[in-house]
């Protein structure tokens, strides 16, 4: 099998709060023949894409990350940059998109950077879900055990699907994750709250909101008979889990990374 | 009877026209038979002083463009002295390829030459350029003096050279020249193009491609393949030596009668036709993008005719040049 190469950008949260997510993901990827190279000296992606027109400064860290990827792309012979964290994906892909639409911004940003080389807008930012979607046939062949007694509510969160210009699926009713799970013969429920907001970073200063928003998601999933909510974002997972705890384990539901489920199906 | 004489004189020239003339046995033998070849420095050893010493000149053939003060002086002298003055070859007739340098100032040109001379560095400081005649505004011959016969082509093909000699003989036999006579057809290349389509449907130009970007189909109109061909704005009368080897016409036969400016006709007609079926979908930006693919505008639109273009005239007149007429 010819291995596909990809650069890999982990980001702060994966390395601090979601090492298990990373581990399981890298295992799955290697099983489907994808070699990943973690960026050396990776840098903060910028965390949240600034929406203001005159706020180019805030895109510097995203651009720096892309330039780092560009340098290492030559070394490894691939221009694909994989992300796991949806926020990293969102920021990097939007910075890339913004530069492609307004290449003149690149010149302005270059003024802030002395050491870096010029970015040629050639990096392709990918999210894990896209990679899994494109390798769904390989995944199917890897299934070794039937994952029993599991009913999954797929949960996507906001940032991999919005805004429309960076989305790889329709944000109102995405089906990427559903299809991946179904391909692995895992039972998936019809879940209208797939992209409902979990409360996001409100968890650091307004937990009430998070409990209410995440509570709705948990309850809807439970009502529909799910016992697992599959997630791809460390923040979603955190919010859903803390909410679950605050509910006092009333609901019999577990929050699990998608790749964890995949590795259950594909064996050790 | 005293044979009339002919002189063949050079302006700024590559030498191809001499070869073209020498290449036609028929023409050369007819000339030698009927006319006294009084001066042709390429074929017969002679100096300019020999030319100047001639008592009379019947036919003067001028090859090459008017580039230096010396060329200009010579052209004016020939006009005064000779009965029939011939502009031979595209440089002489329309300016030709060296005419593309007309937009660059003489000083810039000289500096460019100087800066690109390669020699070992130890001699560099002592190398001096040979003394050159003063460069002046680049012009085609008819621009400086009136001409009687124009022989187009870069170089003129054998057929045209022969035709030219026949015309010449008629003049010598007593017909008055009704100048300026162009030894070429009065219609566009398309009239005789070997690729003229059978069904005569409408012409469509989907895009603009440079020659290396396309696999050019033989026997199909170049324009339809996005290859800019100057056929529609160029006089016919050549032997299609470019088209026959799958290369588009570059316009060496010069503009059609009635208008001087090949480039303006081309942008009015052919470039306005580009992507005509998709205009509304492409909008202005899209069309501009396609048109921008014509990078070397002057080289394509005015390869042989820049010094005779209306915009060059306009430029000269803006500069206050006396040659803007």
């Amino acid at each position, binding site marked *: 099998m010819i291995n596909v190469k990809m650069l890999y950008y982990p980001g702060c949260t994966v390395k601090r*709060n979601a090492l298990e997510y990373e581990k399981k993901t890298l295992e799955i990827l290697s099983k489907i023949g994808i070699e990943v190279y973690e960026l050396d000296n990776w840098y903060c992606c910028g965390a949240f894409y600034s*929406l203001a027109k005159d706020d180019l400064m805030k895109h510097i860290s995203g651009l720096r990350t892309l330039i780092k990827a560009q340098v290492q792309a030559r070394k490894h012979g691939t221009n694909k940059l994989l992300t796991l964290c949806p926020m990293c994906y969102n920021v990097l892909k939007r910075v890339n998109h913004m530069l492609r639409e307004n290449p003149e911004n690149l010149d302005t940003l270059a003024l802030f950077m002395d050491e870096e080389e010029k970015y040629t807008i050639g990096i392709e930012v990918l999210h894990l879900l896209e990679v899994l979607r494109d390798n769904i046939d390989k995944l199917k062949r890897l299934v070794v055990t039937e994952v029993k007694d599991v009913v999954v509510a797929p949960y996507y969160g906001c940032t991999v699907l919005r805004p429309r210009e960076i989305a790889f699926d329709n944000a109102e009713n995405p089906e990427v994750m559903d299809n991946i799970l179904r391909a692995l013969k895992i039972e998936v429920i019809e879940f209208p709250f797939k992209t409902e907001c979990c409360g996001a970073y409100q968890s*650091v200063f307004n937990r009430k909101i998070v409990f209410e928003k995440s509570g709705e998601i948990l309850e809807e999933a439970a009502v529909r008979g799910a016992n697992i909510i599959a997630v791809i974002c460390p923040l979603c997972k*955190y919010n859903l889990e803390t909410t679950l705890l605050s509910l006092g384990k009333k609901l019999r539901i577990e929050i699990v990374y998608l790749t964890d489920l995949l590795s259950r199906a594909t064996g050790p | 009877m005293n044979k009339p004489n002919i002189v063949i004189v050079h302006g700024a020239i590559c030498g191809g026209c001499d070869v073209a003339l020498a290449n036609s046995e028929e023409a050369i033998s007819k000339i030698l038979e009927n006319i006294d070849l009084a001066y042709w420095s390429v074929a017969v050893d002679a100096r300019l002083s020999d030319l100047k010493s001639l008592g009379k000149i019947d036919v003067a053939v001028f090859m090459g463009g008017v580039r230096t003060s010396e060329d200009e002086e010579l052209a004016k002298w020939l006009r005064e002295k000779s009965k029939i003055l011939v502009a031979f070859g595209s440089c002489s007739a329309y300016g030709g390829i060296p005419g593309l340098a007309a937009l660059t100032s003489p000083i810039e040109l000289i500096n460019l030459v100087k800066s690109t001379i390669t020699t070992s560095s130890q001699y560099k400081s002592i190398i001096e350029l040979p003394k050159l005649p003063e460069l002046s505004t680049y012009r085609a011959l008819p621009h400086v003096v009136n001409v009687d016969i124009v022989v187009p082509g870069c170089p003129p093909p054998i057929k045209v050279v022969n035709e030219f000699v026949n015309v010449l003989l008629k003049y010598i036999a007593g017909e008055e020249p009704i100048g300026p006579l162009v030894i070429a057809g009065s219609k566009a290349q398309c009239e005789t193009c070997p690729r003229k389509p059978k069904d005569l449907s409408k012409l469509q130009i989907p895009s603009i491609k440079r020659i290396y970007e396309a696999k050019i189909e033989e026997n199909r109109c170049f324009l339809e393949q996005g290859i800019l061909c100057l056929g529609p704005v160029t006089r016919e009368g050549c032997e299609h030596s470019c088209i026959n080897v799958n290369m588009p016409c570059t316009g060496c036969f010069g503009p059609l009668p009635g208008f001087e400016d090949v480039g303006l006709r081309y942008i009015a007609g052919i470039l306005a036709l580009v992507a005509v079926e998709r205009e509304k979908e492409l909008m202005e930006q899209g069309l501009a993008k396609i048109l921008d693919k014509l990078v070397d505008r002057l080289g394509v639109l005015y390869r042989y005719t820049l010094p005779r273009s209306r915009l060059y005239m306009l430029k000269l007149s803006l500069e206050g040049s006396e040659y803007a007429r």
Partner: protein
Amino acid sequence: MSEVLNRVVEYSGKNPYACYQCGTCSAVCPMVRFMDIPPHRAIRLLQIGAGALVLSSNTIWICVSCMRCVDRCPRDVAPGVVFEALRLITLRQGIDKLKYEEIPNIEEAPTLAIVSASRKLTG
């Protein structure tokens, strides 16, 4: 035109006057019930020159830039982007809306939550 509106147009590149008050943004906003002014009304207030009212509301600080209203807005007014501009008006005056020492669970919270919150709520 009010000063706030001018600034909003400058920062966001969006035109609040394009809004025809359909209410899509308020319908799709996940946070609308926690806001004291629903998004469509915030845009309306900008239109009538009452931007100051929006600036002093909690609406713009509750918004988490989920981009749902941006995607769904039928007029490309994109309230989510307008709110970013409104936040910047305050933040650029040096007023921060987040105090790190008051974050209750700073140890366990995922890094991205803390970084995002500081991106959105501090200058």
